[in-house]
């Protein structure tokens, strides 16, 4: 497009540009989400690979296995902590605890069996025939008629009637007060439960006798029930201790089960310590050691490769997508502002250079270009599974191994530094036959400094002053 545009044409072009930029922005965000999910998957796989690697390095806690693990990894602390020795000591202490528990149980059982409440348990507490049981039943039986009297007297106004001496000569509520009649009514209702020949004075006496008698019986019952409960508690404890003894004799005691689980637990803990060490150490530094154990080295390469895949993929997102996304967001914001501004009548006669719109088009193209680069890098990283092709030494650039030397990424510090320190470096693809390699000619690949490109794109609005025009 060239020439001069009026404000209507210019605003229409801005709308068109906005659609393009918005599309690039949405695609970039969506790609970031996709990348985040892939990173998460890779991290999970690398953790599993690390766990498998630790299992392979330390199959058991024997001295030979620990020694071999130290030789493989250089993790001398493992030998120093002597997990096998720790296990032996802990198991010995637990065996002593079990033996001591057996002694304690026997002593406690002896004490309980000396207790009169245990010795006379049948005499005291046998169902139906025990003296305590019978006594409780008898007292409950004697108590019942009194409780029945109390139940018959039950009335919301009973307590008041007792307090004002209703039914006695000393009752003094005057007849012109309503409470006199309410007392009268309540008294009649209670007396009605005791038959026609009764009156409240008799009922009152009967109630007070029943209340005192029931209270006396309740005190006795309470004491007997406490005695019964105490004896039952001793019996329960005795039974529990006998069961525990049986468990020990049959090897089913929880402490014995713990004893049998200990080797597995100690091995697991030792492997966790080893995992932490392997996660912290640069495997390249122990590559020579691992190379002596090809099966383990293969697993180490797999773990290292997965870790690198996650790390590289995260970097591509940060460097190629995050920066671009913020630049596009700024451009969108400014486009919205300009569209609003130049729609106003005061700009209707203003003229605009069509060349100004070129900048917007090139911004959109650059963003899409970065997006495509990241997608290609992601596809290469995620698709990689040939971990045996990598090496755990300083002359191996895992980025090239993972991308088969086909993707440039100087925006990744590791890659840039490696290239700087190896100016003559050419990626050599390993062939499946041991020792054979193939130099990959990347001369026809476009060498683009992606980092500089991304940074330039991120700041794509920095050259704009107040508006796009």
């Amino acid at each position, binding site marked *: 497009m060239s020439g001069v545009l009026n404000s209507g044409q210019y605003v229409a072009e801005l709308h068109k540009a906005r659609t393009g930029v918005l599309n690039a922005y949405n695609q970039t965000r969506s790609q970031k989400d996709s990348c985040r999910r892939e990173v998460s998957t890779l991290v999970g796989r690398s953790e599993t690979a690390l766990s498998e690697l630790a299992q392979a390095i330390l199959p058991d806690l024997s001295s030979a296995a620990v020694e071999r693990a130290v030789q493989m990894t250089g993790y001398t602390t493992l030998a120093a902590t002597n997990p096998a020795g720790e296990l032996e000591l802990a198991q010995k202490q637990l065996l002593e605890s079990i033996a001591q528990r057996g002694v304690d149980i026997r002593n406690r059982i002896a004490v309980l069996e000396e207790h009169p409440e245990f010795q006379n348990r049948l005499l005291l507490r046998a169902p139906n025939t025990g003296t305590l049981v019978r006594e409780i039943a008898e007292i409950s039986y004697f108590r019942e008629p009194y409780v029945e009297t109390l139940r018959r007297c039950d009335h919301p106004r009973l307590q008041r009637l007792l307090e004002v001496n209703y039914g006695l000569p000393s009752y003094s509520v005057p007849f*012109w007060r*309503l409470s006199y*009649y*309410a007392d009268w*009514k309540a008294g009649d209702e209670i007396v009605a439960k005791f038959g026609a020949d009764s009156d409240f004075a008799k009922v009152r006496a009967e109630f007070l006798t029943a209340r005192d008698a029931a209270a006396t019986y309740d005190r006795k019952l309470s004491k007997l029930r406490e005695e019964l409960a105490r004896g039952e508690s001793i019996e329960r404890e005795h039974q529990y201790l006998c069961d525990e003894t049986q468990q020990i004799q049959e090897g089913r005691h929880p402490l014995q089960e713990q004893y049998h689980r200990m080797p597995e637990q100690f091995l697991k803990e030792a492997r966790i310590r080893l995992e932490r060490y392997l996660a912290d150490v640069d495997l390249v530094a122990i590559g020579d050691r691992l190379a002596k154990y090809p099966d383990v080295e293969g697993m180490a390469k797999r773990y290292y490769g997965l870790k690198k895949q996650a790390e590289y993929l995260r970097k591509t997102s940060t460097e190629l997508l995050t920066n671009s996304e913020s630049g596009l967001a700024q451009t969108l914001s400014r486009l919205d502002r300009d569209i609003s501004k130049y729609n106003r009548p005061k700009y209707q006669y203003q003229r605009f250079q069509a060349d100004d719109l070129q900048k917007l088009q090139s911004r959109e193209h650059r963003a899409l270009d970065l997006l495509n680069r990241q997608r290609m890098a992601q596809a290469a990283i995620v698709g990689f599974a040939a971990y045996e092709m990598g090496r755990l030494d300083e002359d191996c650039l895992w980025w090239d191994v993972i991308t088969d030397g086909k993707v440039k990424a100087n925006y990744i510090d590791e890659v840039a530094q490696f290239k700087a320190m190896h100016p003559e470096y050419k990626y050599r693809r390993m062939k499946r036959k041991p020792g054979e390699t193939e130099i990959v000619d990347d001369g026809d690949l476009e060498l683009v400094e992606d980092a500089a490109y991304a940074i330039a794109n991120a700041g794509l609005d920095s050259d704009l002053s107040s508006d796009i025009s």
Partner: protein
Amino acid sequence: MLTEHEGCAILKEAFLAAGYDIADNVPFSEGNIQFNIDGFDAAARVGFEFITTEAGDRNELTPEMIAAVEKAIEKGALFLLLVDEEEIDAEDDLRNHARRFLDRVAERRRGAGVSR
């Protein structure tokens, strides 16, 4: 709880049935006793007072005034059934209590040689 109107209606019906010529809101002034009685037969000196907050009775009937009324009743110079709205919930209870009060009054009046 019964309202002033409901309570007075029930009491008036019971007192009329017992033969008393009950008038509403009768001004009463004797000695220290000065208030409007809700229902009162001035000739028989028999009536009732239904004490409610709604009617402002608690301002008019102070504890001192009630004590004076009770003293007069005790002497047999006056027969008033004093009903506090807080003490009664059911119409039937109020009706029965009024009937029993009137029986008591009749006994007293007979004992004092007064007919009816």
